[in-house]
């Protein structure tokens, strides 16, 4: 059989343009995964819905919000941030699977921009975070949550939540590159819950033993939750500590610090695949 073999038109992969083109190709690959395998997405969304219902209705009656106000209004901003945390294991699983299957090696043997594989992952996961956040907000509206601040403030809150997710994407990528094998990845999933419970997402740190409360207040998740509660105009837990008083600032700084640590670590780990 004779065929016309295509010749690569651009034998020059340097440059931002090609990095973005390749990253977009890989983002589309990840989007195609969802349309091929919607069950994974639906399971993840259903899981989030279940937790909201569990905390909002099952445990909600026993929960007291220190500053007054309904528990479900207190809960929803916590859940928005919590779903971003649940995203870590999704990222980790995807990265570890590609590594294990040799797909990552194939990418690395190709003339594509090296950064594209990681950027493609990050963009796809952020897009999914947007879908998750919108779903959760609709669910919140359905069970009585309201954003009483200005639309601008609400948008700012959404921005802070996605900013947290962006930081956690790099944590997830790094863990996926370091931890080999699906068992290790399952471990990440188990650690997500304590991370959430040891924060102000579900209960006010003030109701915890003092030292646990302090840990919870310094949990990066808490700053995002606290700041978004203010922006949405939802009840918060107040708190007199410095960290509680600077939630909006820390909701920007914490993720920035995570990015500053984990993005270079992830890139270094990706490069060291060839050692």
């Amino acid at each position, binding site marked *: 059989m004779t065929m016309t073999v*295509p010749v690569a038109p651009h034998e020059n992969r340097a440059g931002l343009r090609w990095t973005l083109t*390749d990253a977009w190709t*890989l983002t589309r690959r990840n989007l195609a995964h969802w349309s*091929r395998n919607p069950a994974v997405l639906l399971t993840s969304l259903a899981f989030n819905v279940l937790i909201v219902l569990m905390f909002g209705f099952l445990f909600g009656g026993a929960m007291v919000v220190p500053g007054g106000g309904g528990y479900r209004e207190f809960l929803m901003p916590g859940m928005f941030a919590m779903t971003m945390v649940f995203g870590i294991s999704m990222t980790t699983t995807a990265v570890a699977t590609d590594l294990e299957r040799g*797909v990552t090696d194939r990418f690395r043997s190709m003339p594509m921009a090296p950064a594209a594989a990681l950027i493609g992952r990050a963009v796809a996961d952020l897009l999914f975070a947007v879908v998750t956040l919108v779903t959760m907000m609709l669910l919140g509206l359905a069970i009585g949550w309201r954003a009483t601040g200005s639309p601008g403030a609400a948008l700012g809150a959404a921005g802070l939540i996605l900013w947290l997710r962006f930081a956690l994407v790099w944590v997830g990528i790094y863990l996926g590159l370091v931890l080999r094998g699906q068992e290790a990845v399952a471990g990440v999933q188990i650690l997500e819950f304590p991370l959430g419970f040891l924060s102000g997402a579900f209960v006010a740190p003030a109701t915890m033993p003092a030292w646990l409360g302090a840990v919870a207040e310094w949990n990066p998740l808490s700053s995002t939750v606290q700041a978004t509660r203010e922006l949405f105009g939802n009840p918060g837990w107040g708190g007199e500590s410095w960290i509680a008083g600077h939630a909006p600032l820390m909701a920007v700084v914490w993720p920035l610090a995570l990015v500053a640590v984990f993005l270079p670590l992830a890139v270094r780990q990706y490069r060291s695949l*060839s050692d």
Partner: protein
Amino acid sequence: MGSEDLSIVVEGLRKRYGDKVALDGVDLRVPSGTACGLLGPNGAGKTTTVRALATLQRFDGGRAAVAGFDVATQADRVRYRIGLVGQRAAVDEVLGGHQNLVMFGRLYRLGARAARRRADELLARFGLADVGDKPVRTYSGGMRRRLDLAAGMILAPAVLFLDEPTVGLDPRGRDEVWAAVRDLVRQGTTVLLTTQYLDEADRLADRISVIDTGKVVADGTPAELKARIGADRIDVVVHDHQDLPAAVAALRVVAAGEPEVDRDNRRVSAPVTSRGGALADVVRALDAAGVSTEDVVLRRPTLDEVFLRLTGRESQEVPA
């Protein structure tokens, strides 16, 4: 580096993992348009060699050029000219075969339409056109391998690396892969193929390099390798186990080395220095000793024996 018509030139390639030496000075020269078999037992350094040549693995010493470009300093150039089929099928399991090939085509910088056209062509060529839209996880092992092979040759690479391409395949899948590789070589692609199967190297490769503990311990055409360990052999199969010692004695008359006894098959085998007359001498000696034989043959050594001689280990049989 190297002369015009060499597609792979490797000189003194070294690599260690911690204090474990994986490559201890590998040398290879593969002429363009030929298939080279890298034959070696588990842990010999086959995968490490291929990964180094495919720009996936940094190495500690030596140099390597692929398709005319230095692997260490011109990796990007090399990457446009190679295809890699690793030890496992490295394709996206969730996507369909067609989606996979389009994605890889795009990453090779083909335009959208060119990538789709190439995907169609390759699926047809590898007999996957019918299942192009099905997710890869529903494919058989042979189909996955063929898709993997197709992904490795989207740009019709000058050099294709295949790392144990038929591991885990049934005979049919193996034949399909072999046919595809032969086709590629016929069309001018240079192939470096690692294998633990002598049979596979013998059938696909123009030349074989035998690698063991990180070094090439012998190379040549399959015929040259057989000739290298020299001698033709005489096999004697006796009717009765009791005659084995007598057969050994008879063989010693002409043998260039100590005869080997295979009790289960009642066979005695020994290398001989000269073809002429040896067979007749042995038959006479056996007659004189009154040994009743089932078979007496003069033959060239098999690659298994070559392998055993060169590495001190048995090679593996291709599973039937």
